[in-house]
């Protein structure tokens, strides 16, 4: 007999797949309903009408819409995500090349956000009403209000322009990529450099990573601080906290074991939101830091109306988002046994 947890996971997984399918359909329809002619983009402006016609057939644009959709779907599942209209390269290949760069920033940014946000939120809630609490709240509000692109520029101005301690852009300094090149095994420069024992490369990677990650982290930090604080305040009012306190359980234990575990659960939902934000926020950050990641790829694809690429990225983004939320839901139900029933 599957346990409550397993049943819950199965249900959520099925739901996620259905939603993903709907997203793909929706995106596909939008991409095909658009005015410009994909074939024209494929062959370029100087092509003849005949070449264009050949392109149409090659791209399958002459077939009815539903048949195009079915073949597209089949392609997705088998790893063929189409050909970039502009570059004539595999969309999936391109995406996988650029993805790790973006992921590095996103992951680091969210780690920073959690490491700063949760303790701050807890502290703020426990010392509710004091000036520390006020500071915490203002901090949280500032976090969600800062335009990340503006903050990124300020960081550049300050740490590169004035202090000269951190690099301006890119993933690696030109000197390092020449003399201490990093072999892209996973694409994650942090991991790859460590795998090779390339300490210079590792340090350089971090130096390049830190500013974009901080800029991207502002919104998540605000979100997480705010959420943790309000959840902690609510939980600390609960009867079981009063019961524990009245019967002599230490303040420390109450805050960090009892209250926190209950408060963490909804905070995790916020993390999901934060990841979603990070995906779109990364686009802006990458532009400013000249970061060769998915964000820049997407932007270029949009500007050039490269529909297979746009489709690919959107679907990836949606997949990412859906499965992160699924993961968080499962984590939530693991931590709060009552959720499994609903």
């Amino acid at each position, binding site marked *: 007999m599957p346990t409550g947890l397993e049943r819950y996971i199965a249900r959520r997984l099925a739901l996620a797949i259905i*939603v993903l399918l709907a997203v793909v359909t929706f995106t596909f329809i939008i991409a095909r309903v658009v005015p410009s002619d994909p074939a024209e983009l494929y062959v370029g402006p100087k092509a003849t009408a005949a070449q264009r016609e050949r392109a149409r057939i090659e791209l399958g644009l002459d077939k009815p819409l539903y048949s195009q959709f079915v073949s597209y779907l089949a392609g997705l599942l088998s790893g063929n995500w189409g050909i970039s209209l502009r570059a004539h390269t595999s969309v999936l290949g391109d995406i996988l090349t650029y993805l790790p760069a973006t992921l590095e920033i996103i992951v680091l940014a969210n780690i920073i956000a959690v490491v700063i946000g949760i303790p701050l939120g807890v502290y703020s809630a426990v010392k509710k009403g004091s000036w520390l609490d006020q500071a915490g709240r203002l901090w949280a509000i500032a976090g969600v209000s800062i335009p990340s692109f503006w903050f990124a520029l300020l960081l550049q101005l300050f740490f590169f322009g004035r202090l000269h301690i951190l690099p301006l852009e890119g993933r690696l300094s030109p000197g390092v990529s020449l003399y201490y090149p990093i072999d892209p095994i996973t694409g994650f420069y942090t991991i790859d450099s460590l795998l090779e024992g390339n300490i210079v490369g590792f340090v350089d990677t971090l130096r390049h990573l830190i500013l974009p990650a901080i800029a991207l982290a502002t919104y998540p930090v605000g979100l997480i601080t705010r959420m943790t604080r309000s959840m902690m305040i609510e939980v600390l009012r609960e009867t079981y906290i009063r019961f524990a306190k009245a019967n002599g359980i230490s303040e420390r234990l109450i805050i960090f074991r009892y209250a926190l575990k209950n408060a963490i659960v909804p905070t995790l939902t916020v993390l999901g939101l934060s990841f979603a934000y990070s995906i779109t926020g990364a686009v802006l950050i990458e532009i400013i830091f000249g970061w060769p990641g998915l964000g820049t790829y*997407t932007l270029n694809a*949009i500007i050039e109306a490269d529909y297979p690429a746009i489709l690919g990225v959107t679907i990836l983004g949606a997949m990412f988002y859906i499965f992160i939320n699924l993961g968080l839901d499962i984590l939530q139900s693991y931590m709060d046994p009552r959720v499994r029933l609903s």
Partner: protein
Amino acid sequence: MAGVLIILFFAVVAVFAPFLAPYPEEGAGVPNPPNKFLPPSSAHIFGTDYLGRDILSRVILGSQVSLTVAVVVIVLAIIIGTPLGAIAGYLGGGIDELIMRITDIFLSFPSLLLAIMLLATLGPGLTNAMISLSLTWWPWYTRIMRAQAVTLRERSYVEAAKVMGVSSFWILLRHILPNAISPILVQGTMDMSSAILAEAALSFIGLGAQAPSPEWGLMVSTGRIYILNYWWFPAFPGLAIFAIAVAFNLFGDGLREILDPKTRRFIQA
């Protein structure tokens, strides 16, 4: 609270912008090349941009754009989303499922990506940006409204109205909507802040407001490459975005403290 005051300040500035700006024509976009890149001074408090235009004037005029964006996007989103949510929550069953699945699909897209895609279809521009953003935002209000409707439809006064034969439409209008309004208001005010940020981001990418509009995001974008040498160019418009976003968030936060009965405990007498 503080938030209201700041918002009022911006509102006043926006309304009277043409009169408050020291160099209104430059604010609107008329270039003044000899004055290129002047640092902040008493004549130009925020300095001048790459076309010699006074940045303070541009920022003041830009407030009109920002406030318009905030209001239009969110109000539109609420107008679309709330009735859908109310219908879904109140009627339940198949309609509920349908509406909620559509909402889920919309919410599965990272919102800016969806807005970008829509803009790619519609073409860049401020109006299109506002429409796109509304279209990505309405699902949140549907969800909130639906949750409220589901709770409220169990209330006795709703049942009483049903028994008396009041039509569903009236019930929704007079009983459910007014009571569900407060979470929507709170969310709406805070979303105005996010809407401004999102629109600024879109303009930053080039898909939103177009030159010579004094839109703040666009100004940061144009000024981006000058950050190291003429920092005032992108810095001040960005500061304005920050300030107004903070204002809306403070306001929404304060609103929530007042409206939420749970946090409204014994206020110190």
